[in-house]
């Protein structure tokens, strides 16, 4: 069995032309991950620049309105650039810089990872080029301009379904032709080893903080930890330090789009099968002949036909549970939490909030649960208005 396995999932299923770059990255990561100076520099960036630790906020009004467990929100939306993506982008940009790379490339769906990478590149004085599907550049026009403001070049991807999957394809192709000065800053906990490990480690600050914060506030662990899952970076970061706490339920919320019984869905665990794609053995939405299926979700950030290998393993081993949440349910939660708590969550995070409300009802007010608000919803306001039939454009 090859490197980077989570049970039978993971591995390094990439074209030979990428193996050299992956070997180089793995060697560098192994060298720097425990390096005292690197860790200190990374932690300083997280604290001073990104604004960590993020708050663990008791949403009292929301909790009482729901009438169940206390709902704590892990406020990744308050990070610089407005989402959890900055954690990993800063980590990888710093690592790339130590490796002597001068240029970052990145894929992006909703644009949050693209913005985070462009931000890290600007800060560390590196060139940045972001690949974004044509569909997503339309859905998230504001983020495209934001990346340009930050000095990045944005490539519109016209191939395939013109979404996140195709942006990843383009990045892999680009990295093959220019590995010497370029690091591929992958934004989700997917892809070939060592990416799922690197992204998880850089995002694990979410659960490391949240675990300490809840123990301080409540003196006990939460009944459940809930996060949204596309490729799975915020969720693996939110779950990681709770994996060993066997009594804490880990719940990943997938984008069901118009429903898991329709073809317009991106719920990989609910509708996918084991396969090999984008460098990993994992679960993927695919057709009857093993072709990767076009997926759909209102959320550009969850619109991906696969899931990270560690999630596939957490699911397979029964440690975590994954549930589908539809567009309608996510939009309702988006509006409900905005109204009830004065927090406008990203449409991605709204998938988690939607299900968290149901989970909270299973428990009493003496119990608590944690939900990761992976990003803020400003970027989604125009799209949600249109969803509700209002003519509002960015």
């Amino acid at each position: 069995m090859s490197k980077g396995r989570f049970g039978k999932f993971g591995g390094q299923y990439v074209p030979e032309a990428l193996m050299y770059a992956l070997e180089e990255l793995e060697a560098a990561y192994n060298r720097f991950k425990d390096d005292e100076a690197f860790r200190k520099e990374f932690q300083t960036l997280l604290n001073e620049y990104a604004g960590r630790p993020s708050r663990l906020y008791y949403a009292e009004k929301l909790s009482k309105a729901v009438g169940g467990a206390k709902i704590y929100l892990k406020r990744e939306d308050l990070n610089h650039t407005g989402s959890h993506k900055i954690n990993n982008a800063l980590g990888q940009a710093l690592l790339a810089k130590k490796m002597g790379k001068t240029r970052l490339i990145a894929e992006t769906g909703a644009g949050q990872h693209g913005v985070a990478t462009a931000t890290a590149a600007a800060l560390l004085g590196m060139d940045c080029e972001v690949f974004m599907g044509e569909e997503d550049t339309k859905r998230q026009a504001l983020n495209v301009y934001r990346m340009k403001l930050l000095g990045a070049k944005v490539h519109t991807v016209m191939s395939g379904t013109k979404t996140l999957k195709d942006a990843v394809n383009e990045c892999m192709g680009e990295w093959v032709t220019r590995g010497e000065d370029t690091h591929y800053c992958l934004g989700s906990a997917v892809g070939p080893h060592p990416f799922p490990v690197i992204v998880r480690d850089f995002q694990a600050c979410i659960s490391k903080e949240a675990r300490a914060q809840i123990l301080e506030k409540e003196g006990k662990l939460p009944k459940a930890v809930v996060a949204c899952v596309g490729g799975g970076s915020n969720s693996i970061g939110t779950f990681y330090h709770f994996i060993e706490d066997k009594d804490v339920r880990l719940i990943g919320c997938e984008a069901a789009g118009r429903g898991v019984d329709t073809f317009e869905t991106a719920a990989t665990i609910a509708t996918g099968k084991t396969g090999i794609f984008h460098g990993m053995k994992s679960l993927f939405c695919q057709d009857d002949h093993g072709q990767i299926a076009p997926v759909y979700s209102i959320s550009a950030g969850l619109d991906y036909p696969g899931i990270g290998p560690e999630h596939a393993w957490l699911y397979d081993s029964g440690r975590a549970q994954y549930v589908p949440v539809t567009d309608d349910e996510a939009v309702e939660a988006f509006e409900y939490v905005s109204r009830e708590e004065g927090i406008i969550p990203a449409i991605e995070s709204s998938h988690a909030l939607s299900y968290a409300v149901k989970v909270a009802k299973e428990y009493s007010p003496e119990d608590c649960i944690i939900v990761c608000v992976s990003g803020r919803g400003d970027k989604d306001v125009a799209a949600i208005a249109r969803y509700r039939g209002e003519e509002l454009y960015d």
Partner: protein
Amino acid sequence: MIDIKTAFEKQKQKAVVAFITAGDPTLQDTERYIELLQESGVDAIEIGIPFSDPIAESHFIQEADLRALQNGVCPDDIFNLLEKIDKKVPFIFMTYANPVFFYGYERFFSRCQQAGVAGIIIPDIPFEENAEVKEIAKKYGVAVLDMVAPVSEKRIQKVCQQAEGFVYLLSDMGTFNIGLESAVKNAKQVTATPICKEFDSTVEDAVKIAQYTDGVIIGSAIVKIIAQHGANADAELKKYLNSVVKAVHSVK
């Protein structure tokens, strides 16, 4: 099943391996084009099983795959077609991990054997991951070919040590390159398996590559001609193949 070896046994002549995407534009056309390839004197034929996301491919082959998939071509159709073709040269598959994994390794390679397919190239299953297919393919007499990139001597030798069929040497990439001559030299130090390298389109490129290798692989030239002429590519294909085959076969 015609062994891949036979492509390299013709009086030390350099081999021409020709790639074609199955089902582009239709399987009926593919059947006729395969006949045409065999008549043109190529030494081995590589059949592409289309995949939705062929990430290691040029845009020309990506588009050919999409055209074939839009026509609903699936592995069973391709196996059925190959079973009825009278083969004069070795046949090899080129496809991605997922269609093979989804079909089931055991079932896939057993059908390769029935259809007379002697080898397979799976670009997204590198050396480190190929044990899971190699063992099963071997049971059915199917060789799993390795690709190598001309980037690192150590890596070339590691991959080539256990090579079977022929070694598929990739085109130069970006700035990490050790050059064709030294890549071949490195590979030859550890394996007696023939080395072939892909080329883009011109006959001059093919001849230049053949001077250092055991054969050349027509990567996307045939696909480009079919993209342009669709179901009426016969005359253009003949003309192109004749020039490549003649030129490469006369390289000493």
